[in-house]
């Protein structure tokens, strides 16, 4: 009897041990791991809190709804403080965890993206740069692992010009436009595109840089007052935005004639400027508000269960929160696309996720299924087009909230995309890269 009991105990223990050993392996096989090099403290912590709050809330939401066709999402955050060196450190720390079944990496920093571009390519990890980063990576034949998804600075600048052209009765000929920009790689990126637009549309472009951090712009705005431009395009970040709005008020420049890029168009940029921001317009590739069904459902499902990532729930539905959700939607959809080809219910490897990102087709119908109609534009990527959309909306600050002014506006693709291709081909030549033949992909 005792012998039988011992055998039974041994057999049970072995079975439990085998099950216990098998369980993590099974879980690991069904997990898609997202490394999240985020920033919640430091100079741009407020922006990071909203963006990564939205990003993580959507991942939680997907998990609560059963995962990506049964595959649960795991993630780990690492604080970068928007600092390039710390961003690289986070990447190095987390890359081993991500190598088996990665999610696209979102740094929300042009500087960190630049620092990771070569590393991610060498390590075969997909790097997403939604509305920032290395824009020539639109040409996927040279940059297979980099994805400047949705739209780029250049296409945005072109769309802003189109908007101003419509506002001016269909022509910008003889008009004067000031480009007030953060004196950094981010601010300089769209200059060539704007110069091309100024030649095409025959307007005068005046480029005025602002030294980092941009908390003092007296001289720049005195020059703007002297130049008497028809419009000012603002390309700021953080404190530069509210300083620009306040100084515009001080100089008596109408805010209705100012149009910002999407990094100059969040609640964080306008609320601290108070009445000085009223009437100001900015571009955006995602809308604000909780009336988008997906955002409302996240609030109900995730926050209802007490699993929300935001401490300050007033940020729910803000531009940057919704941008974080949009970034996560695209990431999850890329994995879903990959699963459709390589096997549903399986965790996807790096090459498969890359393939998914390169074959995204987020149609209006799919956006509707997700409850994200109007949240972001349709996105269709390919080997030769890692951007996939190039569209933005214009929104105006009414003193309390962002009000959409237009439908999606597409930049001048025929003018802008050849600039990316030229840059990418030049880069490939310098680095000795043989571009892929996209017709075979």
């Amino acid at each position, binding site marked *: 009897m005792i012998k039988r009991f011992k055998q039974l105990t041994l057999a049970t223990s072995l079975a439990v041990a085998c099950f216990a050993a098998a369980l993590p392996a099974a879980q690991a096989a069904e997990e898609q791991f997202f490394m999240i090099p985020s920033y919640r403290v430091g100079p741009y912590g407020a922006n990071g809190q909203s963006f990564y709050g939205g990003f993580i809330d959507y991942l939680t939401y997907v998990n609560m709804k059963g995962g990506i066709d049964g595959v649960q999402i795991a993630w780990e955050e690492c604080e970068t403080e928007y600092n390039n060196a710390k961003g690289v450190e986070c990447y190095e720390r987390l890359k081993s965890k991500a190598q088996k079944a990665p999610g696209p990496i979102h740094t929300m920093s042009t500087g960190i993206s630049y620092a990771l571009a070569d590393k991610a390519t060498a390590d075969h990890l997909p790097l997403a740069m939604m509305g920032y980063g290395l824009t020539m990576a639109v040409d996927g034949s040279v940059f297979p692992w980099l994805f400047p998804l949705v739209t780029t600075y250049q296409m945005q600048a072109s769309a802003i010009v189109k908007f101003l052209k419509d506002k001016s009765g269909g022509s910008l000929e003889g008009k004067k436009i000031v480009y007030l920009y953060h004196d950094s790689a981010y601010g300089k990126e769209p200059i060539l595109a704007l110069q091309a637009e100024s030649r095409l549309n025959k307007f005068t472009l005046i480029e005025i840089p602002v030294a980092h951090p941009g*908390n003092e712009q007296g001289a720049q705005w005195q020059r703007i007052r*002297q130049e008497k431009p028809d419009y000012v395009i603002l390309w700021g970040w953080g404190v530069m935005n509210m300083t620009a709005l306040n*100084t515009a008020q001080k100089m008596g420049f109408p805010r209705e004639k100012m149009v910002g890029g999407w990094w100059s168009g969040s609640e964080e940029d306008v*609320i*601290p400027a108070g009445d000085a921001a009223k009437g100001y317009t900015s571009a955006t590739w995602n809308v604000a508000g909780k009336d988008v069904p997906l955002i409302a459902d996240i609030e109900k499902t995730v926050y209802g269960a007490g699993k929300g990532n935001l401490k300050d729930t007033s940020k729910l539905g803000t531009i940057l929160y919704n941008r974080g959700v949009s970034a996560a939607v695209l990431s999850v959809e890329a994995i879903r696309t990959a699963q459709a080809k390589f096997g549903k219910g399986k965790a996807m490897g790096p090459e498969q996720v890359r393939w998914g990102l390169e074959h995204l087709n987020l149609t209006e119908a799919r956006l509707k299924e997700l409850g994200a109609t109007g949240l972001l534009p349709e996105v269709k990527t390919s080997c030769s087009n890692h951007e996939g959309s190039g569209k933005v909306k214009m929104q105006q600050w009414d003193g309390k909230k962002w009000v959409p002014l237009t439908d999606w506006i597409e930049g001048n693709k025929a003018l802008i995309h050849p600039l990316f291709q030229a840059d990418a081909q030049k880069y490939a030549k310098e680095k000795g890269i043989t571009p892929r033949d996209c017709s075979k992909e």
Partner: protein
Amino acid sequence: MQFFLEVMIGGLLSGVMYSLVALGFVLIFKASGVLNFAQGAMVFFAALSLVGCMEKGAPFWLALPLAFGIMTLLGIATEKFVLRKMVNQPPIALFMATIGLSFFIEGLAPMLWGNEVRRLDIGLVDEPIPWILDNWNMVISKFDLFASGLALGLVALLALFFQYTRVGRALRAVADDHQAALSIGIPLQHIWALVWAVAGFVALVAGMLWGARNGVQFALTFTALKALPVLILGGFTSVPGAIVGGLIIGASEKLAEIYIPPLLAGVFGGNFGGIEGWFPYVMALLFLLIRPEGLFGEKHIDRV
């Protein structure tokens, strides 16, 4: 000429805002002979405390003394936990301690009050004075004039404090030699706690004005960058020097930003705008070659 004057006046008024931050540096330097690396963080902490108290329901008139109380506590804590052990240590050790303090405050402030960008309304709009605009076609901001008046008042008060009070004299003695000051019975700990509290008050005024102008946010810590060339120019130990240095730096950086880039572009081509980020430093360094102790700084003589 009218444009030149407008740029110069705008620059002078901006310079006073830099002086406000520089004043905090001067106070600590006068008391301990060390550059307080944490002054920018103190400006951020003070403004965040002010706006934090207002968010908790305190009206502005009450939030201001409350924030001052918090800054005083911070000053006392700094003396007790950071400086007390550093008496008679070389200035570089004290300087390193202030670097540590700076990171500590930068982490503590958002932990206590949150990291959101806040608006601070002090009831003064940053817009041009209509009469000057109509008659002279020049933009002079009400806000800048108010800030200048406040800064000048503060300087007058501090100058009187240092010159004519016992504490002020004790403070100068402490700055010269910690141990000698202690040996003749000057209570070093009290003096340091007091001067850090006063520096906290100056940081509060600076934080209030900069915060009302650009929003209360982490970027307030960058205001220290604007104060350093002011200090080099004005002298690290002179309160009036901080004001004069601020005026010179403010006016020259604005004039340089307007007039130098077109000249450089004419010679080299390209866009040379945005020079105001580094121009004040180059100017201050050039000035160091001529007068290393700054305009109003004390000449240091070591007898062999």
